[in-house]
Structures are given as structure tokens and as C-alpha cells.
């Protein structure tokens, strides 16, 4: 690159650039003047909305179940359904998604069943993750949704790597990774963006800027104008979008995917939204933000906005809304009752998957544990369920290691 000289000191702050927010759908479900609708067919639009609605209802019910003590932990997507589901709907269903943890809407859109959600939430014998992770740590190989890992931002450079593999495979797929504006402070975020730009990787970095990292407001997270300007430093395509505007999120992601897949270029999307619920069931936002602030954002509910648009188009009705809600609530409750009664994963699952094959040392540890549980079955009700308690109970000395 040619060096361009100036002969007076010139400091820049980034304020030279102002990043506008892309929006299509106004608060009343009407297109802004000059905006045009994205190519979203009736059935596709309905699928998208139904996934948003199902996510909202699952979240409401499961948070209630957590409050009743039926579930150890929960996290809601509430307020961010348009950002999450809108982005997912713009992808090919076989594109990879590497989420942070608040993106159950993406799985809902791709057809993860309520049973599948519930089995993970209760860590029962049917949970794909074998009851090892806390609730909401979903994963699905068939739906191209990487299993969630709690440590923040670790998935972002992994997405760059995964997408580089997709580029090598040459099948026209990309990876979209979700993360919050707080996680974007981690070193992993910066490493991911730089490597994606340098190696020309088909990856979409989707930042859900929801205003809070637990209690820390975005104003204490960064001094710049959000996350979007960081793309300039890596010479990356970037767009900021109204995260509560499902049409804008859909269109932005659709275009981003074209850039990623057709040009092998990464894209950063910053979706401006708000975490309407607490960070998690362990959190109480009344300690750090005003109710009035939450109320103001409640008026911008992304579900309501999309619903109004759908109704105007004649693609949805109030009757359908009511019956759908009723059906979903019933399904969630029935499924919940089923899942919480299912037995835990078998004791042997404690030592499987640590390595591809169980090591002899681990097998000895499990055998020792089994002898111990046979001696004290009442102290380990879950582990004892999968043991034949009569075998070796009286004779075993448990001495070998």
C-alpha cells in the first residue's frame, strides 16, 4: 500500500465514521418509507414467526419451572428472538451455527423438538449431552448447531476455523457465530476477526448487542460506538441492524451470507437489541437497572412487531396467535412432565467420551465407584438406578484401586 503523507499531525478517533442502523420494519409493523420487503415468502415468514413464538413460550414456561424448583437453572432469549431467529432463517439450514448460550431460537427454527429441548434441560438419559452440562447447553449434529460451551467467546475463533474448513470443502456453506457485546471484549473475539480477514474465511460474526453483560452496561464495556467499528480495524464488511426488526435482520444476514459464501469474506453484524429478562435464573436485574428502562424496551417487543406485519399481510391472525400459544403451552407442559420423570444417564456415562476409548485407569475408577455405590445405594439414588445392586454387595472389600 502506498504511504500517504500529511505535514500536520492528524489524530483520528473513529468519530470520522458514523455507522447507521439498518431498519425495515417500523414499530407498528409497517415498512419504513423507502424500505422494501426482503424476499421472504409466506410459509418462510410463518416458520420464522412460529419459531420466535415457540421460543418465547418455552422460555416463559421453563423460567416458571425453574422458580418452582423443578429445574436447576435457566436462561431466556426474551427480547432477542428476532435477532436470533431472523439471522438463522437467512442461512441455509446446513450452515453451521456456533452460539453463545442465549440462542435457543436458532434451534427452534431448525426443528429441534420440545422433547429434545426438555431432555437437555433435565439432563436425563435421552439428553444428547448425557446430562453433563447445565441446562440450555444444547447441541445438535443433525441441525448443524455446535454444542454450547459456557466460557464466553471461545466459539468465535472456532467459528473462523470451522468456516475455513467449509471453504476447503467447497460445498458453499458458511458458519455463523453468535455472541454478546460483552463477550466481544474477550481476546478470542479479536483473534477470530483478524484470522478470518487474513485467511478470507466465510464466517458471519453476529453480535447481539443487548445492552448488558450480566450487570455491566454496554457503556462500561467499551468506549467506542458499539462493536461495529471494530470491523474497520480488520478490513471486514460490517453492518449494524435493528435487532428487534426481524425483516432487517433477515435481509442483512442474507446479504452477509452472499458475501461470505460467494466472496469468501467474513462479515460482522451488530444487532442492536435488549435483554428483556434477567441474565439467568441466578440473576436479579433490579440491583443494576431501572424498571422503566425495561418497560421502554418492552414496547419494542420484536414478536409484536413481526406479528403486526404478518397480520397486515394476511399471513397470520389473532385467532391463530391464540390457538398457537395455547397449543405450545400445553405441549411444553406435557413434555416437561415426561422429561423430568425420565431416569438419569447411566453411571457408565460418567467415564465415556473423556477420550475416544475408555482408558484402563478410568475403568478402574468406575469399578471402584460401583462397588462403593453398592455399599451405600441410598446415598446415590441416581447412580444406583443403573446398577444391579445384588451383585457383589456383601462380599466386596473395595480395596483394589
Amino acid at each position: 500500500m502506498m504511504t500517504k503523507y500529511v505535514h500536520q499531525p492528524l489524530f483520528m478517533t473513529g468519530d470520522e465514521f458514523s455507522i447507521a442502523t439498518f431498519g425495515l420494519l417500523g414499530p407498528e409493523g409497517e415498512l419504513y418509507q423507502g424500505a422494501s420487503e426482503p424476499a421472504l415468502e409466506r410459509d418462510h415468514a410463518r416458520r420464522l414467526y412460529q419459531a420466535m413464538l415457540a421460543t418465547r413460550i418455552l422460555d416463559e414456561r421453563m423460567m416458571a419451572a425453574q422458580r418452582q424448583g423443578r429445574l436447576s437453572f435457566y436462561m431466556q432469549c426474551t427480547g432477542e428472538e428476532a435477532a436470533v431467529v431472523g439471522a438463522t432463517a437467512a442461512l441455509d439450514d446446513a450452515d453451521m451455527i456456533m452460539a453463545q448460550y442465549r440462542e435457543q431460537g436458532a434451534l427452534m427454527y431448525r426443528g429441534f423438538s420440545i422433547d429434545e429441548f426438555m431432555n437437555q434441560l433435565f439432563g436425563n438419559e435421552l439428553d444428547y449431552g448425557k446430562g453433563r452440562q447445565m441446562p440450555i447447553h444444547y447441541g445438535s449434529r443433525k441441525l448443524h448447531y455446535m454444542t454450547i460451551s459456557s466460557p464466553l467467546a471461545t466459539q468465535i475463533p472456532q467459528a473462523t476455523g470451522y468456516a475455513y474448513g467449509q471453504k476447503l470443502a467447497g460445498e458453499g456453506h458458511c458458519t455463523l457465530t453468535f455472541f454478546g457485546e460483552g463477550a466481544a471484549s474477550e481476546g478470542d473475539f479479536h483473534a477470530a476477526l483478524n484470522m478470518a480477514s487474513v485467511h478470507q474465511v466465510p464466517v458471519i460474526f453476529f453480535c447481539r448487542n443487548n445492552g448488558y453483560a450480566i450487570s455491566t452496561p454496554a457503556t462500561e464495556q467499551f468506549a467506542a460506538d458499539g462493536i461495529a467499528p471494530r470491523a474497520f480495524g480488520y478490513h471486514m464488511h460490517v453492518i449494524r441492524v435493528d435487532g428487534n426488526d426481524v425483516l432487517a435482520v433477515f435481509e442483512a444476514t442474507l446479504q452477509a451470507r452472499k458475501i461470505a459464501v460467494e466472496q469468501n469474506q467474513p462479515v460482522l453484524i451488530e444487532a442492536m437489541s435488549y435483554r428483556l429478562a434477567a441474565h439467568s435464573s441466578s440473576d436479579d436485574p433490579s440491583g443494576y437497572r431501572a424498571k422503566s428502562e425495561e418497560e421502554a424496551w418492552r414496547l419494542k417487543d420484536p414478536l409484536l412487531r413481526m406479528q403486526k406485519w404478518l397480520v397486515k399481510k394476511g399471513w397470520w391472525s389473532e385467532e391463530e396467535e391464540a390457538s398457537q400459544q395455547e397449543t405450545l403451552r400445553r405441549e411444553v407442559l406435557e413434555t416437561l412432565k415426561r422429561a423430568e420423570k425420565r431416569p438419569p444417564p447411566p453411571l457408565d456415562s460418567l467415564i465415556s467420551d473423556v477420550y475416544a476409548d475408555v482408558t484402563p485407569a478410568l475403568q478402574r475408577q468406575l469399578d471402584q465407584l460401583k462397588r462403593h455405590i453398592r455399599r451405600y445405594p441410598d446415598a446415590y439414588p441416581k447412580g444406583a438406578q443403573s446398577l444391579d445392586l445384588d451383585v457383589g454387595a456383601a462380599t466386596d472389600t473395595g480395596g483394589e484401586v
Partner: protein
Amino acid sequence: MSTMNMLQAINNALDTAMAEDEKVICFGEDVGVFGGVFRATSHLQEKYGKARCFNTPLVEQGIIGFANGLAAQGVVPVAEIQFADYIFPAFDQIVNETAKFRYRSGDLFNVGGLTIRTPYGGGIAGGLYHSQSPEAYFTHTPGLKVVVPRNPYQAKGLLLATIRDPDPVLFLEPKRLYRAAVGEVPDEDYQLPIGEADIIKEGSDITLVGWGAQMEVIGKAVELAEEQGIACEVIDLRTLLPWDADTVAESVLKTGRLVISHEAPLTGGFAGEIAATIQERCFLYLESPIARVAGLDTPFPLTLEKEYLPDHLKIFEAIRESVNF
């Protein structure tokens, strides 16, 4: 004296240290207005201002790198890592920087003022990433000190000593006991010694060694053993690095038996270091093999957490086996 839980004792220690020395400052994710996700830093921002107690961006490597620089400059930073499971992005700053600052500069510079507080341990349905006990990664790091309190009284006295210690200290807080452990804590400023184990209970038949939350579990096992007439000596190591081998060796010379317990996986756990040292120093006095009761060599599970954990029944069995060897 006041009755406090462990969080209140930690909060009280931070308050005491900040009041006594204006160079002491606290920071980390959510520690400001909110007072930390566990509320260990409650009201400190209110009391000492935003310059001395504040939220950081969400970046552990940044928090500890920043803390290293601050400490080198002469400030006394108390940095919080929200969960020990999330300390690893800061591993480079801790292992290569914090621990080696003094040595590599020939003591031209040091970060001795630094304290890193972090909650560790399982038993709270936290699964893989809210349960780990990573102490052994750090006990393998010369230059660092590692301290773990077992109750509110110990927490306040050890934390005050940690903050004022001339070396950088990793202070691991047993989060399962944050609210569960309640006890009498002096209102005044006091310190408990770093590098010294605490003999909680004397006994002649067997020595039990642990630290942090595991002391409560060992206590329950000891009750079962004593019902069977086994006299147990119980030692809380309190400091894992540098650890008090003299106190443990002296006890084992007397009892001839040793059981060590920690939640972290067995292989590479700190119990291995203790066992090796004690067999060296007490070889001819040992009546049975030194036993380790630890977590399995797997990541920390969720649904089968109870089965995974080295609970009082597993420790009791180890005591019985040792005595009947």
C-alpha cells in the same frame, strides 16, 4: 464479634483492607454497582468510589494483565475472576507474568501486591464450567502463592494476610460455602498466617488432610470414623503453595496413616505432591499406603455430580481401609 457467612467475611476483609490502605483497589466483572455476582464486593464502590472499585470489560486476560501493571506500579490490586473456571484466558498473565515478575527482573520490579480472588469448586449443580477446582495448575507455578479458606473466620484473616503479603497470591474461595458456612468473625482487623497449616482436631490413629470446602466433607467422615473408635487428626492445609509439609509430616509420624482429599481429578492433583513428600519423610513410620480421595479423572459432570464428588462416605471408606490395612 459478628455472625457472618463467608461472603460477608470476605466483603468485610475487603472493606477493612480498603479502609486501612488507600492503595488497595478492587475490580473485575460486575464487581462495581452490583457488588459482584456473588455480592462479595457489595457497597465497596458506594464507600470508596468508582476509582477504587469498578467493573471491568469482560476479559480475564485483560483483568490480570492490568492488575500486573498496577501492582508493578505500587498499587495493591484485588482482582476478581468471576469463576475459577474462567481464569484460563488469564493463565498466561498469571503463569508467565505474575509468577515470574520478581525473578526475571532480579527484583527490580515485582507484583507482590497482587491478589487474585476467585470462587472455585462443585456441589452446586454447576456442571463442567461452574464447578472446577483448578488449584493444581497453579501449585505447579513457582512464584505464586495459593491460599484457600475453609470458613468465614479463616476467610477474613487469610484474605487480609493475602492482600498484605509481599508476594502475589491466588485466593480460591469455596463458593459452595459462600452462604452455607456461617460463624463468628472478629470485627477488628486480624491476619492468619500464610504458609501454615491448621490442625483442626488432634487424634492418634490417622491423619486427614484437605483444604477449603473439602474440610466440611472431611469433618463428616471423621464423625463416622470416630463413632467406630478411630481417633482422627484433621489438618486444613490453608496454603497450598508454599505448603506446610512440616505440620503434615509431624502428624503422620505420630499416626502412621494419611488420607488426602480434594475435589479436583485424582491424576495430577495436589494430593499426589503431598503423598510423595510424606512418603519421603515418613516412610518407615507408615502403617498403610497413603490414600487419595478425589474427583474422577473426568471433566466435572452435572446429573451424576453426587457420584463424581469425593464425599464423606468415600472418605470414610478410605479411613476404614487405611486402618484395616
